[in-house]
């Protein structure tokens, strides 16, 4: 199933667009999405562990709610990746 991942902060470096489209198995959860993002990072930045750590530390949100690793994804969901924050 297709899942759209909106990119923010340092994760914007993962694509020229504001998002990445992933193809995940039915019944996938946030933890599966995170693992897929880790694969993308390892492929794109094989020499830079900072990006890998960033994805491992990232939260994910659906609309305006942070969701846990056990959150079940649905076909065509849009999920945001929320890397460690630092505004103000």
């Amino acid at each position: 199933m297709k899942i759209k991942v909106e990119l923010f902060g340092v994760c914007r470096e993962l694509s020229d667009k504001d998002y990445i489209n992933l193809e995940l198995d039915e019944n996938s959860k946030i933890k599966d999405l995170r693992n897929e993002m880790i694969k993308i990072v390892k492929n794109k930045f094989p020499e830079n562990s900072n990006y890998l750590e960033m994805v491992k530390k990232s939260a994910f949100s659906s609309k305006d709610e942070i969701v846990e690793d056990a959150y079940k994804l649905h076909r065509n969901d849009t999920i945001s990746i929320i890397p460690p924050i630092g505004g103000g």
Partner: protein
Amino acid sequence: MFHCDVVDIKEISLDKAQTFIESQKCGASLFFIGTVRDHNNEKEVTGITYDSHDIMVKKSFEEIYNEAIKKLDLQHPAAFVEHAKGYVPLGGISIIIAVACKHRKQVYDFSRFIIEEIKKRTPIWKKEHYKNEEAKWLDGQKLEVKK
């Protein structure tokens, strides 16, 4: 009384903040203004690009305001919070937190509470631009899932 938003730097305005919070019921008002400084970690900074998850940022600002109202002893509170999005040059305003209350202790507590909570939990990111180096996204704080 509360207003919050994420805006382009051209729209950030102290006048707008002052107009929003002013009230004859309040004897104290306080303006916290965050600006882009010229150095960080021994690097010469020329500007900062702010990225924001706008919907979550506004929700976070509203939650922080509501928590402040519950936790602090405030009378006639008013708050105006705006954060800049996009490129902000040296000296430019990144955030305005304008608050008003009946007494001075309340505005200091109120303003401090808001900025410290924003630092902990509002999804905003900074990419620093340097004079002689490549721009870099700054390390941040992991956002925790509320249980």
